[in-house]
C-alpha cells in the first residue's frame, strides 16, 4: 500500500538533504515524491545516462559502481543522483541495488523550483557536494 503523506513526511524528515526544512514544506515535498521499488541487482541509475531526478533511499542498501569499481555503499536516508540534475550531464556512476530497495524519486522539474523555494535544501546539497569533493581529493578531516 502506498505511504500516506504523514508517513512520507516522517521519512523525509530523517533525510539529511531535507535537514532544517519546515514541516509545511516537507508536506509539499511529500506530494512531489514517488515511491519506487527495486530488486537485487537492479540498476537504480546507470552510468552515462541522462538523469531526470534524484533518489532517496528509504530501505535497503545499494552500491555505487563506476567503470566496474565499487566506490561507496548507500543506505536509508542517503540521496543520490542530484549531480545530473544540477548540471544536466550524464550520470557519473551506476547505483545498483544490493537487495530489495525502496526509494523516493524526485523529478528534476520538481527539484529545481524546490531549490529556489526552500534554499536550505540547496545549502544542504552544497555541503554534501563539498564534502564529496574533499573526500575525493583525499583531504577530508571529518572522517
Amino acid at each position, binding site marked *: 500500500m502506498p505511504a500516506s503523506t504523514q508517513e512520507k513526511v516522517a521519512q523525509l524528515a530523517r533525510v539529511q538533504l531535507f535537514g532544517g526544512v519546515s514541516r509545511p514544506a516537507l508536506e509539499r515535498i511529500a506530494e512531489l515524491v514517488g515511491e519506487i521499488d527495486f530488486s537485487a541487482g537492479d540498476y537504480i541509475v546507470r552510468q552515462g545516462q541522462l538523469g531526470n531526478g534524484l533518489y532517496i533511499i528509504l530501505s535497503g542498501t545499494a552500491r555505487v559502481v*563506476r*567503470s566496474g569499481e565499487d566506490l561507496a555503499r548507500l543506505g536509508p536516508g542517503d540521496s543520490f543522483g542530484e*549531480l545530473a540534475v*544540477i*548540471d544536466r550531464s550524464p550520470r557519473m556512476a551506476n547505483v545498483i541495488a544490493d537487495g530489495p530497495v525502496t526509494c523516493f524519486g524526485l523529478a528534476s522539474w520538481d527539484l529545481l523550483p524546490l*531549490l529556489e523555494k526552500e534554499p536550505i535544501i540547496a*545549502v544542504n546539497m*552544497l555541503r554534501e*557536494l*563539498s564534502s564529496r569533493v574533499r573526500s575525493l581529493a583525499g583531504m577530508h578531516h571529518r572522517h
Partner: protein
Amino acid sequence: MDRDDLVDTLAGMALFADLGRVRLQEVAHTFIEDSFSAGQRVLRQGFSGTGFYVILDGQVAVRIDGTDRATLGKGDFFGEMSLLLGEAPVADVVALAPLRVLQLGGPDLESFLKRHPEVMFRMLQSLARRLRTANTRQS
C-alpha cells in the same frame, strides 16, 4: 572601485549572471572589497577563521602541501567549502599577482546564499563540475 563599475564587473561573472541590476547592487553592498599583494596568502591551509572570496582582478594559486593544484582568476571564487563544512581550508590560496577580491565574512555566507538562490544554484553547478573533474582525474 566605483560602485557602478563594480556592478558592471559582477554582471559579467558566471556566479552572478542571473541577477538583475538591483540585486547586483545589493551584492556589491554586502561584500567588502579587499586587496592583496603578490605572494600574500589569502587562505591558509589548516587555519580556521576564513571567508568567502570572489576574484575581481588578478590570479591566485591553490597550493596543497606546497604543490600548486590549480590557478584561479577573475570571476572564480574560493573559501566556500570550508565555510559550509565548518572545517579549516585544505589548501593555501596565494596571490600570484596584485589581487583584488570581494570578501564575505564566514557567518554571512549561508544567509547570503539563501537570499540569492540563483547564486547558490550557480555555486552548486560549479561544485558539480569540480566533483566531476575530481572523479575523472581519479579514474
